C-alpha cells in the first residue's frame, strides 16, 4: 500500500529534477514545483507508514524507516541548511551519500563535506578522502575548489570550478554546486555579463538559486530573452535565500532596455582628423589617470599618438623650436623617437596592468612598438611557464594528481589571458610550444599516471587551440587523442 506509491513518487521526483537540470525555460519552474510536490507527498506517505508501525508497537522499525525513506528526500536540504552551517563535515558526507545524488554518491558527498569543512582537521579529512579516489574527476576538483573557498581563496576556487567544463566525467549534482558557487561569485562581483554568458551556454545544470541569478544577469545585460518581472519574481519564490536575493530582484526588475554604461567605441574605426593632434594625444594619455582603462580608450590613445607624432605640423614645430633653441643637429627626429619610446613604455605598463592587448592594426611609432613589446613579453612568460610544467614529468617525487591539474589550470588561465589580449597573432606564435609541451604531458598523464580525464581535457584543449590557429598536424593528432574512450567512475565516456 505504501511501497509502490513511494517508489513511483521517488521516480517522478528524480525525473523532474533531471528534466530541470536540462531546462532553462519557464518549464524549469514547473519541474521544480513538481519535484517539490512529489517530495512532499513522499514525506506524508512515510509519516503515515511510520505512524502505522508505531501503532502496532514496531516503533524501532518506524525509526529505521525514517532513516531509510526520509533522508533521501530531505538529504540535500539537510546538508545545505543544517550540516554546512554547523560545520558537520562527516555527517554532511554521510547524509549526502544517502541522498541518492546519482550513480556515484561519494562524489557529491565529497563536495558536501568540503563545503561543510571549517577546521584544519576537517580539511585534512576531506583531502584524505579525495586523494583516495583515483583517478581524478570533477568531484575531486570541485571539492578542492570548495576547500580553497573555505580558506578565503576565491580566485583559486573560481579557476578550479571553471576548469570543470573541460572534464568529461560529469556528476550532475557536483556540477550544480559548482554552477551555484560561480553564479553567487559573479553576482557578488557584479559580473553580470559573465554569468549571462554561462547561462546562454548552459554550462552548468542550474539550481533554483543559479536560475534566479541567471535571470537577474539577463536583465542587467539587456538580453532580449531575459525573463519578465513576473517570471523573475516566480524564480525568486522557488529559490532559497529569499531575504538575501530580494534586493537583487527589485534592482533587476527595475532595469529596462539596454544595459547601463557607454557603448564601447570601435577601436578599429579610424579617428577623425584633428586639427591639433598633439594636445589630443596628451589629453588621451592623461585621461588614463582619471578613468578606467578599456580596450577602446587604449586604442584611442595609441591612434592619437601615432597621428600626432607622424603629423607634419608637429615635425615642423619641433624643427623650428630646435633651431631657435640651438639644439644639436637631428634633435627634432630624436625628440620624436624619445617621446614615442616614453609613451610606449607608459602605455605598455598600463596595458599589462589592465590585461589588454595592443590595438589591432596599429603600425605607427607607438602602436607598432607597443604590439611588439606586449607580444614578446607575454610569449616569453608563456614559454617559460610551459617548459616548467613539462619538466614536472622528470621530477623524482610524483606530485598529487590535483597539483598536476592545478598547474595546468594556472597555465590555461595565463594562456587564455595572453591570447585574449594578444589576439590571433599571439595565439599562432604561442601555440606550437604549448602543443609540444601539452601533448607530452597529456601522454604522460594517460600512460604513466592513469589520469584519463585530465589527459583528455588537455588533449581537447590542444585540439580546440589547433582548430583556432589552423595547425593541420596538431588537428590530426588531437582528433586521434580525443577519440579515445575515457574511463571514468560513471563508465567509459566516448567523446
Amino acid at each position, binding site marked *: 500500500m505504501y511501497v509502490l506509491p513511494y517508489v513511483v513518487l521517488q521516480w517522478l521526483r528524480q525525473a523532474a529534477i533531471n528534466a530541470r537540470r536540462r531546462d532553462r525555460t519557464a518549464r524549469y519552474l514547473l519541474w521544480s514545483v513538481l519535484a517539490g510536490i512529489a517530495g512532499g507527498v513522499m514525506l506524508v506517505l512515510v509519516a503515515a507508514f511510520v505512524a502505522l508501525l508505531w501503532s502496532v508497537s514496531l516503533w524501532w522499525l518506524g525509526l529505521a524507516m525514517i532513516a531509510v525513506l526520509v533522508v533521501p528526500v530531505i538529504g540535500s536540504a539537510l546538508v545545505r541548511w543544517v550540516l554546512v552551517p554547523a560545520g558537520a563535515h562527516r555527517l554532511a558526507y554521510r547524509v549526502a551519500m544517502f541522498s541518492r545524488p546519482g550513480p556515484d554518491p561519494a562524489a557529491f558527498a565529497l563536495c558536501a563535506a568540503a563545503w561543510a569543512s571549517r577546521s584544519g582537521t576537517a580539511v585534512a579529512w576531506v583531502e584524505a578522502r579525495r586523494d583516495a579516489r583515483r583517478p581524478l574527476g570533477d568531484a575531486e576538483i570541485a571539492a578542492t575548489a570548495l576547500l580553497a573557498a573555505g*580558506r578565503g581563496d576565491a580566485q583559486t576556487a573560481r579557476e578550479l570550478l571553471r576548469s570543470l567544463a573541460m572534464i568529461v566525467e560529469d556528476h550532475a549534482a557536483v556540477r550544480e554546486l559548482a554552477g551555484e558557487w560561480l553564479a553567487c561569485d559573479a553576482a557578488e562581483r557584479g559580473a553580470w555579463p559573465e554569468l549571462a554568458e554561462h547561462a546562454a551556454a548552459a554550462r552548468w545544470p542550474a539550481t533554483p538559486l543559479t536560475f534566479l541569478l541567471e535571470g537577474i544577469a539577463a536583465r542587467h545585460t539587456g538580453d532580449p530573452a531575459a525573463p519578465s518581472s513576473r517570471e523573475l519574481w516566480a524564480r525568486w519564490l522557488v529559490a532559497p535565500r529569499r531575504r538575501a536575493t530580494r534586493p537583487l530582484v527589485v534592482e533587476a526588475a527595475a532595469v529596462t532596455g539596454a544595459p547601463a554604461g557607454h557603448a564601447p567605441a570601435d577601436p578599429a574605426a579610424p579617428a577623425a582628423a584633428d586639427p591639433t593632434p598633439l594636445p589630443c594625444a596628451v589629453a588621451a594619455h592623461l585621461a588614463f589617470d582619471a578613468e578606467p582603462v578599456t580596450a577602446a580608450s587604449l586604442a584611442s590613445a595609441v591612434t592619437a599618438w601615432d597621428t600626432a607624432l607622424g603629423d607634419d605640423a608637429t615635425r615642423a614645430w619641433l624643427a623650428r623650436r630646435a633651431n631657435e633653441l640651438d639644439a644639436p643637429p637631428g634633435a627634432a627626429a630624436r625628440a620624436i623617437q624619445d*617621446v614615442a619610446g616614453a609613451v610606449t613604455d607608459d602605455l605598455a605598463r598600463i596595458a599589462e596592468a589592465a590585461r589588454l592587448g595592443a590595438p589591432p592594426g596599429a603600425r605607427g611609432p607607438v602602436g607598432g612598438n607597443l604590439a611588439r613589446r606586449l607580444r614578446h613579453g607575454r610569449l616569453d612568460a608563456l614559454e617559460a611557464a610551459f617548459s616548467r610544467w613539462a619538466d614536472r614529468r622528470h621530477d623524482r617525487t610524483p606530485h598529487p594528481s590535483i597539483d598536476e591539474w592545478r598547474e595546468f589550470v594556472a597555465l590555461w588561465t595565463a594562456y587564455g589571458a595572453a591570447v585574449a589580449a594578444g589576439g590571433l597573432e599571439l595565439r599562432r606564435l604561442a601555440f606550437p610550444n604549448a602543443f609540444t609541451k601539452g601533448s607530452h604531458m597529456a601522454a604522460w598523464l594517460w600512460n604513466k599516471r592513469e589520469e584519463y580525464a585530465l589527459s583528455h581535457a588537455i588533449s581537447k584543449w590542444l585540439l580546440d587551440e589547433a582548430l583556432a590557429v589552423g595547425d593541420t598536424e596538431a588537428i590530426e593528432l588531437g582528433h586521434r587523442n580525443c577519440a579515445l574512450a575515457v574511463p571514468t567512475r560513471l563508465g567509459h565516456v566516448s567523446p
Partner: protein
Amino acid sequence: MKILDNPFFVLGLPAEASRIEIEREAQKLLGMLELGFAEAASYATPLGPKLRTAEMVRAAVAALRDPYQRLVAELWARHAPPPRPEPPQRPAPLPSRDGLRRALGWRP
C-alpha cells in the same frame, strides 16, 4: 619624461619662459623652500597638485639649461591641458555587494 615631473610645471612657468626667467624663478623657489613657505611646497599639474622639493627644482632648472631636454619638455608642456587645482574626480565605484556570496550560503 613623466608629465607630472615636467620642469615647466615644477617651476610653475609657461613653456615660453626665457632662460633668465627660469633661473630667477628657480632661485626664488629654492629660497622659499629653504624658509619653509607653504605656497612653494606644491605645484600644479594637469593631474592635480604635486609635492615640490628643492632637488626637483634643481633638476628642473638643469634640464631646461640643456637645449635638447628643453625641446622635449616644451613638447609636453605646450600641449598639455591646463594645470588643475585639484586631482581629477575618479568615477564612483559600482555599488558593493560584499558578503553576498556568504549571504547566499557560500564561502568565503
